[in-house]
C-alpha cells in the first residue's frame, strides 16, 4: 500500500486504490501524505481530502487528529499543521436562530438575509435591520487574523467561532489539509466559489469514490420542471422592474455595474490563463475570450434575452410525448423558433460547448402516472469525465480510493485519466471473518416496459423462508437489501399476507426503510437500539438507497447481510439509456458490462456495510443464483471474491443455514490480540523484521 502510493507521489501521477474498509485506508493515506508533506514541504503543499458524507468527513479529521497527536508524542514538538473540515452553512452556523433551522436551504436563505451586502448597507441607515453579529464581528476583526495551527473538526470550528464571536463559515483558510465533500471540488457551481484557489501542487484524495462517476454526472446535469420555470419567470420580472427603476433614477450607475461585470469576466480569463485559479470545467478558455457577446451587453437586452429563452423552454415543456435530442439539435431548434444564436447562449450557459456529451430529454409525464402531466426537461450530462477533468489536470496527484472499486480498470476508462498505479488490496486475516454465500434462487422478477413488477410467488416465499431461518440463527442485527423500493414494498406486503413477517417477529423486531429520510433515520436508531439491548432486529432496506450508501453496520449492528436479487439499475429510464449509448459509442463499453459493473458495485457496497474491519465478522448472503456466474463473481472486490469458494455457491436454504451456523459459532469465540499478532497485527519489531519486509515487498509486486 505505502509503496504504491509513494510511487504515485514521487511521479506526481494519479492512482486508483481498492482496500477493504476498516483496514486503515484513511489513516495510511493520511500518514503517508503528511509524512511526505513534512519531508518535502515544497513539492506537496496541500492535501485535499474529499469524502462523501458529513460523518465521514468528521471521521477523517478525527483520524488526522490522532495522527498529529502521535507525531507530537513521538517527536516531542508541537507541529504547525493546520487542518480543517469544511461544510455547508447548516453544519457550521453558530447564529442561535439561524442554526436552529433544520434544512440546509432555510439556513442558507436566512444567512443571506442577514449577511448580504445590501442588507448591511441598509443597516447603516436604519440600525434596526437585523444582521448576524458573528459575521459583523468577523468582518471587523477576523479577516486578517489567521487561524492558529491545529486540527479543526466542524465542532471545533464552531467552538472557535463562538469563542471569538466570529462566523466560522466565513473564516478564510489557508490550511495544509482540507477535508470536505466531493461537491466542493466537482460541482462547478460550488467549486468556483470554494476550490478555485487551491495550489497546483496539492494532493487530492477521493475517498469512498465508488460512485464518483455518478456524482460527476449529477453535478453537471439539470432538471427543469414547470415550477422552476415559473419561479424563474417571476425572478426575471423582478429583475426587469428593478432595472427599470434604477434606470429612471441612475442610468450611469447601471452602466458602471454592467461594465464591471464584463470586466470581471475578462479578468477571470486572464487569471485562469496565468494559472492562478482552478479552471472552470464548464467554461473553456476560448469562450471566455469572446467575453460577452454584443447583443446581451446591455441590461435590457440581457433581460429580454432571458425572457425569450424562458418562453422557449416553456413551450418545449408543453409537449405531449417524450422528446430526446442532442445538444446541437436543441440549439438549432432554438435558433429556428426564437432566433437565439448559439454564441450568446454559450456564454450564458457555457456547458453547451461540450454539447456532444449532453443530451436533452423532455418527458411530459412520469412513467408510472401517464395521466398526470408533470413535464420535466432533463438536461443531462453523459460523460463523467467532464466534471472531473480539471481536477486531474490541475493537481499533481489524485488518488481515488474505496472499499469497493472492482473492476479497477473501468474507472480510468469512464473518468478518462491515466493512472500511474492501480492496486487492489485484500485483508490479511487471522481468522476468516467474512462468509459470503450464494443461494440458488432464480431470477425473481422482470421489469416490463413500465414499472409494474412480475413477482414470482414461490420465490418470494423462499426469500421469506431464508430470512426467517436466518432470523432464528443470527444473533443481533440482520440487514436485508432489496433491489428497489417498489419491489421491497410488494414483497413486504406479500410476506405480511403469508404470515412470514409474523413468524420473523417472534425472533426479531422488524424495521423498514421508507422513502422519507427522517422516518428512516428514526427506524435506524431504533434498529440500533434493538441490537444494543439484545433483542435483535432486522432492517429491510434498499440497495442504492440512503442506508446502503451512508450507514455502516459495525459489529453486532450487522451480523448478516442478505442481498435479495441483483441490484440492476432501472434500465427503462431514458436518461440511463442515453448514457449507455454514449458509453458504447465513446468508450467502447458494452451496455451489459456497464450494467453488471454498476449492479455489482452496489451489491458489494451493500454487503460490505457489515464488515468494517478485521475484528468484525459477518455473513454475506447473495440470494440470487446469478451471483454464481463468473461475470458477476469476477466483478466483486477481491477481498470478497477470494472467500467465495465453490462450496459456498448454489446453496439451498438449509445448506446456507448449516454453513452460517457453523460460521457464527466459530466467530463467536473470543478473539484476542495474541491471536492476531504476527498475522494481521504487527508489533514494531515484527514489522521491521526481515521476513515481514520481504512479505510486504511480495504483496506490493503482486498488485
Amino acid at each position, binding site marked *: 500500500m505505502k509503496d504504491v502510493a509513494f510511487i504515485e507521489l514521487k511521479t506526481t501521477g494519479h492512482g486508483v486504490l481498492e482496500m477493504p474498509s476498516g483496514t486503515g485506508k484513511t489513516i495510511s493515506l493520511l500518514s503517508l501524505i503528511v509524512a511526505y508533506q513534512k519531508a518535502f514541504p515544497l513539492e506537496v503543499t496541500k492535501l485535499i481530502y474529499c469524502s462523501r*458524507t*458529513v*460523518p465521514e*468527513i*468528521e*471521521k477523517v479529521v*478525527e483520524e488526522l487528529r490522532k495522527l498529529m497527536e502521535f507525531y507530537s508524542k513521538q517527536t516531542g514538538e508541537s507541529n504547525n499543521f493546520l487542518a480543517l473540515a469544511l*461544510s*455547508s452553512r447548516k453544519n457550521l452556523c*453558530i447564529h*442561535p436562530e439561524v*442554526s*436552529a433551522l433544520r434544512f440546509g436551504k432555510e439556513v*442558507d436563505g436566512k444567512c443571506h438575509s442577514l449577511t448580504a451586502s445590501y442588507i448591511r448597507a441598509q443597516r447603516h441607515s436604519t440600525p434596526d435591520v437585523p444582521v448576524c453579529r458573528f459575521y459583523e464581528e468577523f468582518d471587523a476583526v477576523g479577516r486578517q487574523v489567521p487561524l492558529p495551527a491545529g486540527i479543526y473538526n466542524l*465542532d471545533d470550528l464552531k467552538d472557535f467561532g463562538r469563542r471569538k464571536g466570529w462566523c466560522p463559515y466565513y473564516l478564510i483558510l489557508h490550511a495544509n489539509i482540507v477535508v470536505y465533500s466531493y*461537491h466542493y471540488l466537482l*460541482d462547478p*457551481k*460550488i467549486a468556483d466559489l470554494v476550490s478555485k484557489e487551491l495550489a497546483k501542487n496539492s494532493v487530492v484524495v477521493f475517498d469512498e469514490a465508488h460512485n464518483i462517476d455518478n456524482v460527476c454526472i*449529477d453535478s453537471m*446535469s*439539470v432538471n*427543469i420542471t414547470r415550477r422552476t420555470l415559473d419561479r424563474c419567470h417571476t425572478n426575471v420580472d423582478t429583475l426587469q422592474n428593478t432595472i427599470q427603476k434604477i434606470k429612471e433614477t441612475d442610468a450611469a450607475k447601471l452602466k458602471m455595474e454592467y461594465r464591471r461585470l464584463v470586466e470581471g469576466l475578462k479578468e477571470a480569463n486572464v487569471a485562469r490563463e496565468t494559472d492562478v485559479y482552478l479552471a472552470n470545467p464548464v467554461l473553456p478558455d476560448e469562450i471566455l475570450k469572446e467575453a460577452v457577446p454584443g447583443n446581451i451587453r446591455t441590461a435590457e437586452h440581457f433581460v429580454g434575452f432571458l425572457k425569450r429563452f424562458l418562453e422557449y423552454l416553456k413551450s418545449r415543456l408543453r409537449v405531449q410525448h417524450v422528446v430526446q435530442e442532442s445538444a446541437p439539435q436543441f440549439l438549432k431548434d432554438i435558433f429556428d423558433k426564437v432566433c437565439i444564436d448559439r454564441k450568446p447562449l454559450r456564454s450564458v450557459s457555457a456547458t453547451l460547448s461540450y454539447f456532444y456529451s449532453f443530451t436533452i430529454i423532455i418527458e411530459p409525464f*412520469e412513467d408510472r402516472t401517464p395521466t*398526470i402531466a408533470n413535464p420535466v426537461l*432533463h438536461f443531462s450530462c453523459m460523460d463523467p469525465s467532464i466534471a472531473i477533468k480539471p481536477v486531474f489536470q490541475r493537481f499533481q496527484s489524485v488518488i481515488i480510493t474505496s472499499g469497493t472499486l472492482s473492476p479497477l480498470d473501468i474507472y480510468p476508462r469512464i473518468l478518462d485519466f491515466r493512472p500511474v498505479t492501480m492496486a487492489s488490496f485484500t485483508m490479511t486475516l487471522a481468522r476468516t471473518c467474512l462468509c459470503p454465500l450464494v443461494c440458488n434462487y432464480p431470477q425473481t422478477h422482470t421489469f416490463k416496459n413500465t414499472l409494474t413488477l412480475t413477482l414470482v410467488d414461490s420465490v418470494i416465499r423462499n426469500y421469506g423462508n431464508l430470512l426467517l431461518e436466518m432470523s432464528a440463527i443470527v444473533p443481533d442485527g440482520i440487514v436485508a437489501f432489496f433491489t428497489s423500493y417498489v419491489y421491497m*414494498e410488494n414483497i*413486504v*406486503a406479500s410476506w405480511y399476507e403469508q*404470515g412470514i413477517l409474523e*413468524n420473523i417477529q417472534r*425472533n426479531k*423486531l*422488524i*424495521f*423498514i426503510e*421508507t*422513502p*422519507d*429520510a*427522517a*422516518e428512516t*433515520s*428514526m*427506524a*435506524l*436508531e*431504533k434498529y*440500533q*437500539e434493538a441490537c444494543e*439491548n439484545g433483542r435483535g*432486529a432486522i432492517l429491510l432496506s434498499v440497495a442504492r438507497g*440512503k442506508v446502503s450508501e451512508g*450507514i455502516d453496520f*459495525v459489529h453486532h449492528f450487522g451480523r448478516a447481510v442478505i442481498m435479495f436479487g441483483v441490484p440492476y439499475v432501472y434500465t427503462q429510464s431514458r*436518461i440511463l439509456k442515453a448514457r449507455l449509448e454514449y458509453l458504447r459509442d465513446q468508450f467502447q463499453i458494452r451496455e451489459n458490462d456497464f450494467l453488471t459493473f454498476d449492479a455489482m458495485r452496489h451489491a458489494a457496497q451493500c454487503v460490505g456495510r457489515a464488515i468494517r474491519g478485521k*475484528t468484525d465478522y459477518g455473513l454475506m448472503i447473495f440470494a440470487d443464483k446469478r451471483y454464481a456466474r463468473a461475470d458477476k463473481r469476477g466483478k466483486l472486490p477481491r477481498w470478497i471474491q477470494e472467500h467465495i469458494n465453490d462450496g459456498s455457491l448454489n446453496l439451498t436454504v438449509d445448506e446456507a443455514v448449516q454453513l452460517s451456523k457453523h460460521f457464527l459459532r466459530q466467530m463467536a469465540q473470543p478473539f484476542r*490480540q495474541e491471536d*492476531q499478532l504476527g498475522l494481521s*497485527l504487527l508489533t514494531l519489531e515484527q514489522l521491521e523484521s526481515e521476513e515481514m519486509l520481504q512479505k510486504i515487498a511480495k504483496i506490493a509486486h503482486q498488485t
Partner: protein
Amino acid sequence: MSSLSEEVLLVVKKVRQRKQDGTLYLMAERIAWGPEGKDRFTVSHLYADIRCQKISPDGKAKIQLQLVLHTGESTTFHFSNESSALKDRDAAKELLQQLLPKFKKKANKELEEKNRMLQEDPVLFQLYKDLVVSQVISADEFWANRLGDINNADPTSSNNKQEVGISGAFLADIRPQTDGCNGLRYNLTADIIESIFRTYPAVKEKYSENVPHNLTEKEFWTRFFQSHYFHRDRINTGTQDIFSECAKQDEKGLKSMVVQGVKNPLVDLLSLEDKTLDEGYGFCKTFPSTSNSNRTVKESSNSAIIKRFNHHSAMVLAAGSRKGETPADHASETSSTDGNSRDSDFFQPPVKKVKLQEVIEYEDLQRENRPKTVALNLKKSDRYAHGPVPLQSQHYTTSQDIINSVNYIRHEMLNYKPNLTQVLSSTTASSAIAALSPGGVLMQAATQQAINQMVPTEVQGELKHLYAAAGELLRHFWSCFPVNTPFLEEKLTGHLEEMLQTAYRKFHIWQTRRMLRKT
C-alpha cells in the same frame, strides 16, 4: 371461626361446592364457603393465597367459578340459583377481580422468593431435594442463611426484578381459530392484554374510557379485532370505529418521534449529505410527485404496512425500556427541548464525539487495560488440567519433568553428530519403529482411560449431588463457629451431628449401591 369481626363484602347463596349446597362469603381478606345449615366454613382461602380465578365459558350449562391457589390446588364453586346464577357469578367475579390484585402484592413474598430462587438455580434445587426433601436438615435451616445472604448482599434484586419485555410477535400469537360457523375466535390471555396495553397506550386509554361503562370487556376486544387497527392493511375505516382515533394517535406519535430526530448523528440521514444545492440542480432521484392522490390503493396500503411495522417495533422496544429509563428520558427530553435553542451545540458534541471516537477506534490496536485479574496459582497444574488420574504404580511424571526432558532432548538434538560407524542394524531399527508406532508394544500405556470415562454418568451425577450436599452441610457446620450462642451449641452438638451422620449414611448407601452395580 372468628368471622364476626370481619367485614363481609358479599354473600351469595345457593352455591354448591363438592355437590353440597352452601353459601359463599366474600370478606375483606378471604373468601369462604360454608355448607347450608352449619355455621362454620369448610372452605376458606385468604385472597393472598389465590393465584387466579377462572370462570366457565358463557354457553355452558353449569355456571362455575374456580379459584386456583398458589399451591396448585383449586376449588370450584357452582352457582346453582336458577334465576340469578349468572348474575351472582359475575358479581363474585367482579369483586374478586378488584380484590385479588390488592392482595397479590401482599402475597407471601418470601415464599415467592424461595420459589423463584429454586426455579432459577438448578443446583440449589438439587441441593434442596437432597437435603430438605430427604429430611437431612429442615427447610427453615436450609433457607436460614440462604435468604439472609441474598437479602443482605443485594436487597434490591428481589424487588427490582428486571422488567420482562414484550415479545415482538404477541399479535401473531393470537392466531384466530375458526369456530366452525363463519366466525373467528381469538384467545386472549392476561399477558397478551398487558402486552397490547403496554405497546399501544392509546388502546389502553380507550379501554379505560369505555369499559365497563359503554362496552363490556368482551365487546371491547371484539371490536378491537374487527377494527382495521388490528388488520393493518385495511384502509377502509368505519367512521364510528373507536379505534380509528387510536390509529390517528399512533400516527401522531410516529410523527413526533420522527420530528424529534435522532440523537446519534451517524445515523441521521438528513444531515448526511453535504450539498447546498437544491432540487432542480442536478438529478434528484426521488421524483417530487409522490403524493397520495396518484398512488394506487394497493401501494398506499403497502406503505401503510411498512409504517405500521416500524411503529410497532418502535413501540415494543419502547415498552421494554420505558420503565427503567424514565428518569434518563426526562433528562434527555428537557435538554432536547431547549436543544433547539443555541444550547443544542453545547449539548450535542459529546454524543457526537463519543460516537466518532467509537468509530475510529480499533480495539485490537488498543493496549489492553482492563483490570488485572488474579492469575490462578496452581501448584500442580497438570492435576487441574487432567483431573484425577487413576493411581498407578508407575513413576509419576509432572509436566515440568516432561518439559525438562523435551528441552534436554532438544538440546541433545542440537548437538547431535551422526556417528555412522555405530548405527543400529536395520532390523532392530524397524522393530523399534514398529514398537513406537500406534498399536506397538511401547505405545499401549499411552491409551489410558480418563477416570471420567470409566464411571457411568449417572454415578457421576449422584456423586456430584452428594458432594454438593456434603459441602452444604459442612458450610452449616463451619458457620456455627465461633460457638457463642446456646442455639449454635445445640445445633452443633445435637442435630448437626445427626445431619452429618445422615449424610454419611447416604454416602454409604451410594457407595454400596455402586459396589453392587459394579459386581
